[in-house]
């Protein structure tokens, strides 16, 4: 059988993946108009988030596709002759044709529309980026989901950006007027200007003019005014299409010609065109399995949406109207929640959330069902409080992305013996797409009586804190001994680095000593940070961010002599990129000779203690923040821990060092220091909590010593202090490390004293030891031949890796 797929977007990719994954034995040809492999369009905006070429959205390659024609377009379907023709002049015969042509942005026919951009493909975004260089103003026409995403992208490109929405409020398809108002507040706080209830009149050379005469300067104009299914091929060959577009299909995704299927956004299934990727995936799977003879059907999809848009949670589910509704609105906090219920207030119909999506996760599965608590309790008490996994009826859909019900999850537990969330994901696919139902999965497992396993991995039944205690109390010094006595097998990439870290925290000597070397992840193994092309980056320690001109010159000379890319890090030091393994010792010889030492940027260890300039120079400073930062960084340097540790010291309450975003942050007061713990930037920002105030230098150091040691002993693998502090609670932490409620403080103090005493520079010890140096060769049989796959090009006068081609034939 020969299958031809027209289009190579998400739907086509999932189709090919399902087909080949299920043992399809015929030939599969894919023809895609875009000049690249299928990529994650949902994440399109991230294409603009870094310099060109840094974000790779490409989907994983699929083995088993016979031929992929990229940059070619299907131009006609010859139904009688069962063949398609393409723009490049190919004629491709088929037994089965699959249309996966997606949709195209709608461009309203207004004067000047020719100079506007659309927001659909990587090429569109590259064009927008190019046009934004040197531009200052931008306008997005359309205030829906995509319009706001596009507006934020323009803002990110440095343009003063306006959004124009014809409806009375933003995101009119997902939220009601109240939600729209709260959303508008969020958007405006981000610096975007919003115009609602007004249409576009025309686009001129340097501005757009709205229907009410308002003129907005606009170097760059982007349309995001809806999409239209790309059904032109179907129309021209006489397939049935809907009155408002879309290729008509049955529940097996078959068009009016039994040899032709249509999937994804170009299909009109059950009278609806779906503009979300999850239903497109389902359609693709249904079509693939139909082709293989299975009896599966697409019976519609949940169009609930939950998004993080510009940092704001926006979610809606079920019906967005109803006899009764309950609303919670906090315009100051930017939260709006509304539930729609039946007229007896007992059945949940749907809901809208802006600014806080917790009700979404817990309540969406209960749409159409009798409520277990009053609607206001559900809104106010937080859905989690009112609902446990047991409350979900068996046929409630828990994962809407993959259409998995409560009952199927129960079966995975009872029949298949699943014991954790990972197992549920594997058996049912629930929670594998957007992930918003994962908390619910855990609640259901608990309701099923499963105690979640704390086993680190298949080799150890213990958690990290348990292993820490075993190693500490039993005085175990090698991985081999630990796994022989307390585990099984030969370990893996999960348990080995954990044990390596535990041994190091307990003063196990050099991380590359003897057997320990085999436990280290590549970063610790080469004492450098691996980058995407297999080269490494080098970060010498610059305590507190203070550095002499002489040392700066050495870093500059080293970077120049080895041709490295240099970048100032967020931790007030300098990162040197592009070093090959065999160059690392030569680079470090120069650095060590100039008085530098390892910065442990590669380790789960203390990274940096940032500082502001403090009372020495600053007219506001009340304490010497630089001096304290240096003292702390030197004290805790090299301390291995469950995850990286960052710190900062601010010399006054203005907090220029951003200490409250750190694992431990110190802010000077008139009387000493305030200590904050459990802060985080990154993926889930959290402000650190005040642990103790007005500490003397000695009390500060002692409290941090205990905080860090207690964390190292009791945190889970890869658990940052933020999650750890939240887990144990600030009060308990205070009891243990300040009031000594467990009587372990002397022990913690002593452990830290041993660390400080035992510190040595890992890099110096490495280059002085021929045995440890053995690993720093490009090839074991050609130690001086540089890896030929590492190639650089020049950008802004520095090197950058030439992307390693991930070959998909």
């Amino acid at each position, binding site marked *: 059988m020969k299958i031809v797929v027209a289009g190579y977007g998400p739907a086509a990719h999932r189709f090919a993946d399902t087909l080949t994954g299920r043992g399809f034995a015929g030939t599969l040809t894919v023809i895609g108009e875009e000049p690249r492999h299928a990529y994650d369009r949902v994440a399109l905006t991230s294409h603009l988030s870094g310099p060109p070429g840094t974000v790779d959205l490409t989907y994983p390659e699929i083995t088993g596709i016979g031929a992929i024609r990229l940059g070619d377009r299907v131009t006609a379907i010859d139904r009688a002759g069962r063949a398609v023709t393409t723009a490049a002049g190919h004629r491709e015969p088929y037994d089965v044709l699959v249309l996966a042509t997606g949709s195209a942005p709608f461009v309203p026919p207004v004067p000047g529309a020719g100079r506007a951009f659309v927001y659909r493909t990587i090429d569109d975004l590259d064009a927008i980026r190019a046009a934004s260089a040197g531009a200052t103003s931008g306008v997005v026409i359309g205030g829906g989901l995509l319009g706001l995403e596009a507006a934020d992208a323009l803002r990110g490109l440095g343009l003063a950006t306006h959004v124009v929405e014809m409806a009375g409020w933003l995101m009119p398809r997902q939220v009601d007027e109240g939600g729209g108002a709260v959303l508008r507040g969020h958007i405006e706080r981000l610096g975007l200007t919003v115009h609602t209830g007004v249409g576009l009149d025309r686009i001129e050379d340097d501005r757009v003019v709205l229907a009410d005469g308002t003129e907005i300067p606009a170097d760059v104009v982007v349309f995001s005014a809806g999409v239209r299914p790309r059904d032109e091929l179907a129309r021209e060959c006489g397939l049935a299409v809907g009155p408002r577009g879309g290729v008509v299909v049955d529940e097996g995704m078959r068009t009016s010609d039994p040899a032709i299927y249509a999937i994804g956004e170009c299909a009109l299934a059950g009278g609806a065109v779906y503009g979300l990727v999850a239903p497109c995936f389902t359609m693709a799977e249904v079509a693939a399995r139909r082709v293989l003879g299975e009896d599966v059907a697409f019976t519609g999809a949940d169009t609930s949406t939950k998004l993080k848009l510009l940092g704001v949670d926006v979610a809606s589910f079920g019906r967005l109207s109803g006899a009764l509704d309950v609303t919670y609105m906090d315009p100051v906090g930017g939260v709006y929640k509304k539930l729609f219920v039946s007229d007896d207030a007992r059945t949940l119909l749907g809901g809208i959330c802006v600014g806080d999506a917790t009700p979404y996760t817990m309540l969406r599965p209960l749409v159409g069902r009798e409520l277990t608590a009053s609607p206001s309790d559900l809104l106010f008490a937080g859905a989690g409080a009112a609902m446990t996994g047991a409350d979900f009826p068996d046929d409630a859909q828990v994962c809407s992305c993959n259409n998995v019900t409560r009952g199927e999850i129960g079966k995975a537990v009872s029949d298949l013996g699943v014991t954790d969330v990972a197992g549920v994901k594997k058996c049912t696919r629930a929670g594998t797409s957007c992930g918003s139902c994962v908390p619910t999965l855990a609640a259901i497992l608990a309701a099923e009586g499963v105690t979640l396993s704390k086993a680190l991995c*298949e080799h150890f039944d213990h958690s990290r804190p348990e292993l820490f205690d075993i190693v500490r109390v039993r005085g175990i010094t090698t991985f081999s001994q630990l796994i022989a006595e307390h585990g099984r097998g030969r370990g893996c990439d999960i348990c080995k680095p954990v044990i390596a870290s535990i041994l190091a925290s307990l003063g196990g000597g050099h991380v590359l000593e003897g057997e320990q070397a085999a436990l280290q992840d590549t970063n610790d193994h080469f004492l450098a940070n691996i980058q995407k092309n297999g080269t490494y980056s080098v970060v010498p320690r610059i305590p507190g961010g203070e550095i002499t001109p002489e040392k700066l010159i050495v870093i500059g000379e080293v970077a120049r002599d080895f041709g490295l890319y240099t970048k100032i890090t967020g931790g007030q030091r300098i990162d040197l990129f592009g070093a090959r393994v065999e160059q690392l010792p030569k680079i470090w010889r120069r650095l060590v000779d100039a008085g530098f030492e390892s910065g442990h940027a590669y380790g789960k260890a203390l990274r940096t203690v940032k500082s502001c300039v403090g009372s020495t120079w600053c007219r506001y400073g009340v304490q010497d923040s630089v001096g304290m930062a240096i003292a702390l960084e030197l004290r805790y340097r090299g301390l291995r821990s469950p995850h990286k540790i960052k710190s900062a010291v601010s010399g006054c309450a203005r907090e220029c060092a951003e200490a409250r975003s750190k694992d431990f942050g110190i802010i000077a007061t008139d009387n000493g220091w305030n200590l904050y713990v459990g802060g985080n930037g990154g993926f889930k920002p959290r402000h650190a909590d005040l642990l103790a105030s007005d500490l003397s230098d000695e009390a500060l150091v002692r409290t941090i010593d205990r905080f860090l040691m207690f964390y190292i002993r009791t945190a889970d693998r890869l658990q940052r202090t933020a999650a750890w502090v939240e887990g144990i609670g600030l009060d308990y932490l205070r009891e243990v490390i300040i009031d000594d409620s467990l009587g372990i403080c002397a022990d913690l103090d002593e452990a830290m004293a041993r660390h400080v005493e035992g510190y040595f520079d890992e890099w110096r010890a490495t280059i002085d030891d021929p045995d440890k140096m053995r690993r720093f060769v490009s090839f074991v049989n050609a130690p001086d031949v540089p890896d030929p796959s590492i190639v650089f090009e020049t950008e802004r006068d520095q090197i950058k890796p030439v992307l390693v081609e991930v070959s998909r034939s």
Partner: protein
Amino acid sequence: MTLAPHAPAPPAAARTWTRVCAYADLLPERGAAALVLGRQIALFRTFDGEVFAVGNRDPFSGAYVMSRGIVGSRGAEPVVAAPMHKQVFSLVTGVCLDDPMAALPVYPVRVAGGVVEIDIATAGEVSAA
């Protein structure tokens, strides 16, 4: 990409062995990269002293880094985890245990007189030509 049938293994006598390095050059439970007739090979010496040879290119990231992964076991299978994103590959078959659509080429390897030798011509691999 097409799935090439596994090349029928020639009888052991018909193999062409290329010397790569001394067995002692390999660190226990770690890998080492080797350049053999222009190809990048990742050699691994496991806990029990066995030696495996697979392709050094990580099919997920495209970088030549497999030799730097952590060696261990999954069930009874000796494995290596890709250092970039930690997908686990069997050292015996080369197949990715987390995503069986991906695989590393595997090369026959032997230790003769303290020297590690591989047969570069015979790769049981999913051809990536």
